[in-house]
């Protein structure tokens, strides 16, 4: 076994050696670029054009799977092998800033002729700023809004989708009446925190107090959001189910098991592909209704970041600039279905023609970031668990928010200690 492994090792070594020889002839500077998931597969194509435009640079694209990306990046950080340029989820920016891994980009972005920041949707630029400093350039954007069954809503007596919570509840009740006890009006999967987070962000009250030091889930706003969320289960408008129980969300949406679904842009392509042709006109997207009118949603998506450890920052920035050009972003949308972060890029014919994308274009102007602390994902997870306990009738809303604040304060203990130490020095 060992000998065989060693042989393979030797062979691999020989291969690397041969590649090294080839590199000697190739004097181009190498920029290492890590991209995640499907974007990683498609990035290679965009990079080829870049290499043609910049003959002195070679880009080495590495693909990471979404499920392992976070761990891989942290391991690379610990091992000092981070790439030059990287695709980073917006919610991870705070975390990688906390460990001081990211290069500030304000200067480069302002000096650049390509990345005109005021052309970007403001909420997403904000998502990339930590304490006023810009650490990433939005690459593609992602937010959550309502997918709904137009036909069922019309049958229930409503011609237009909801704009306020009250309207929304009325429509949900009417749809529920229409579809009967075996089916539901909306799907709010209990293993996703995003639907509740959207409702909470719409309140405009911060979810954390201080400098992200304490939980603020006891606020009237969050209670209102949680109560509203819970009422959809109490009134039997939403099933108490997780996504894994549903098995096939698209199929169930087609069968009318639920008529409203809060989800993101990737599902446009999925619904188009998976719903039968006769239902293709039956579904539509609409911006999130808010408490008293059009509401905000989450500023998600991913950005391009340059790591501090990089020795090719200039070249990496050139690549970031290339990927930020409106026509390249239009191409990127065609390849991946990822929505571009710049208003100009939205003029691309494919995007302008898509009726399902239109709601996203509107929603993108109205987004808010969740709290930018490294612990946020863990807190969001606790929020999800607390909400599940309320929905399953284990806790009341008041008990749940008190418990959630207690957990959040525990999670943020280390952050408080570090901030105190910082202030003291």
């Amino acid at each position: 076994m060992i000998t065989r492994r060693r042989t393979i090792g030797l062979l691999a070594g020989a291969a690397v050696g041969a590649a090294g020889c080839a590199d000697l002839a190739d004097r181009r500077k190498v920029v290492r670029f890590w991209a995640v998931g499907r974007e990683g597969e498609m990035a290679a194509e965009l990079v080829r054009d870049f290499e043609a435009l910049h003959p002195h640079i070679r880009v080495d694209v590495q693909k990471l799977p979404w499920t392992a990306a976070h761990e891989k990046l942290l391991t690379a950080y610990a091992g000092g092998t981070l790439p030059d340029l990287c695709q980073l989820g917006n919610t991870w920016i705070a975390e990688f800033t906390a460990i001081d891994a990211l290069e500030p980009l304000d200067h480069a972005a302002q000096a650049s002729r390509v990345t005109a920041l005021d052309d970007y949707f403001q909420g997403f630029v904000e998502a990339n700023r930590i304490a006023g400093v810009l650490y990433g350039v939005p690459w593609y954007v992602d937010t959550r809004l309502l997918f709904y069954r137009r036909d069922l809503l019309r049958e229930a007596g409503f011609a237009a989708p909801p704009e306020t919570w009250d309207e929304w509840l009325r429509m949900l009740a009417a749809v529920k009446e229409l579809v009967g006890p075996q089916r539901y009006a909306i799907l709010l999967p209990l293993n996703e925190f995003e639907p509740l987070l959207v409702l909470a962000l719409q309140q405009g009250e911060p979810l954390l107090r201080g400098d992200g030091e304490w939980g603020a889930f006891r606020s009237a706003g969050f209670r209102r959001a949680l109560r509203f969320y819970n009422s959809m289960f109490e009134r039997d408008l939403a099933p108490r189910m997780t996504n894994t129980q549903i098995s096939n969300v698209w199929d169930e949406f087609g069968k009318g098991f639920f008529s409203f679904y809060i989800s993101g842009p990737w599902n446009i392509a999925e619904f188009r592909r998976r719903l039968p042709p006769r239902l293709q006109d039956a579904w539509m997207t609409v911006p999130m209704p808010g408490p008293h009118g059009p509401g905000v949603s989450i500023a998600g998506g991913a950005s391009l970041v340059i790591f501090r450890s990089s020795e090719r920052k200039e070249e990496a920035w050139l690549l970031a600039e290339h990927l930020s050009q409106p026509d390249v972003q239009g191409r990127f949308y065609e390849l991946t279905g990822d929505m571009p972060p710049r208003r100009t890029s939205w003029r691309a014919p494919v995007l302008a023609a898509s009726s399902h994308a239109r709601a996203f274009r509107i929603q993108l102007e109205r987004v808010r970031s969740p709290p930018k602390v490294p612990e946020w994902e863990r807190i969001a997870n606790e929020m999800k668990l607390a909400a599940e306990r309320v929905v399953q009738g284990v806790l009341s809303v008041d008990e749940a928010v008190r418990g959630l604040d207690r957990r959040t304060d525990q999670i943020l203990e280390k952050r408080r200690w570090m901030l105190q130490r910082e202030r003291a020095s």
Partner: protein
Amino acid sequence: MSLERAAWLFIAPALLALGLFFFLPVAGAFIMSLTDFDLYALSDRANLRFVGLRNYYTLLQDPLFWKALGNTFYFVVLGAPLSIGLSLVAALLVNSKLARFRALFRTIFFAPVVTTLVAVAVVWRYIFHARYGFLNFALAQIGVEPIDWMGDPRWAMPAIVILAVWKNFGYNMIILLAALQNIPEELYEAARIDGASAWQTFRHITVPGLGPVLLLVSILTMVGYFQLFAEPYVMTEGGPLQSTLSVLYFMYEEGFKWWSLGRASAVAFLLFILMFIVTLLQLRIGRREARA
């Protein structure tokens, strides 16, 4: 060279490997469990605090940890005997001279062990599906109301037990089968001549003959079942209402999802101590049985 020194020399490589790859990491993990090692500490060692036994203290006060512990015990107490019992029945069946196609059944029973859990989970998710699932369909034939296997906190763990038992019984079956074939045929012949019933033969020849192997199988199963992780990970993500969260799953989330490596190490040590005690108890019971 004295005999003693030669002996030390011979075991030196093994000791070295053990020390390097077992004792050293374990010691390291123990030290880590006394700190609050996390993401911040990863970036700057100045952010590392020595917290003594606080990780253990807060863990023992964390209701979620106790819940995970309770769930794990529930799983072991329900799953291990079921699994061993089913293995024994399967082994007896495929060992029986009356059975036909024994090789075929042996293969079929062993197949779940070598399948990938993730792939199997997809199938089982459909089997457990509340509305379209085969299991509920079968239960409906005998008049049982549909059960929300993956959604009802009371039923999720039994569902996980069913999956785990199905997945694992083949392995123990093979071990028990080997042991069964080691019991001398003469004993059965003698019993037959003495006019012993099938049950008497089983109780007084088969079970004592299997004794040591049964003990081994029960320890292996127990240790394995205490480390419940993959089944809830692929089926339920620990839900609903954390009713399928196991200690190992809890540790995984602490360590690799949230990077609280200090706390995760503390969980690992608590689990280690627990399994050590349980195994000691089993060995003691096994020894008493052997003496009796």
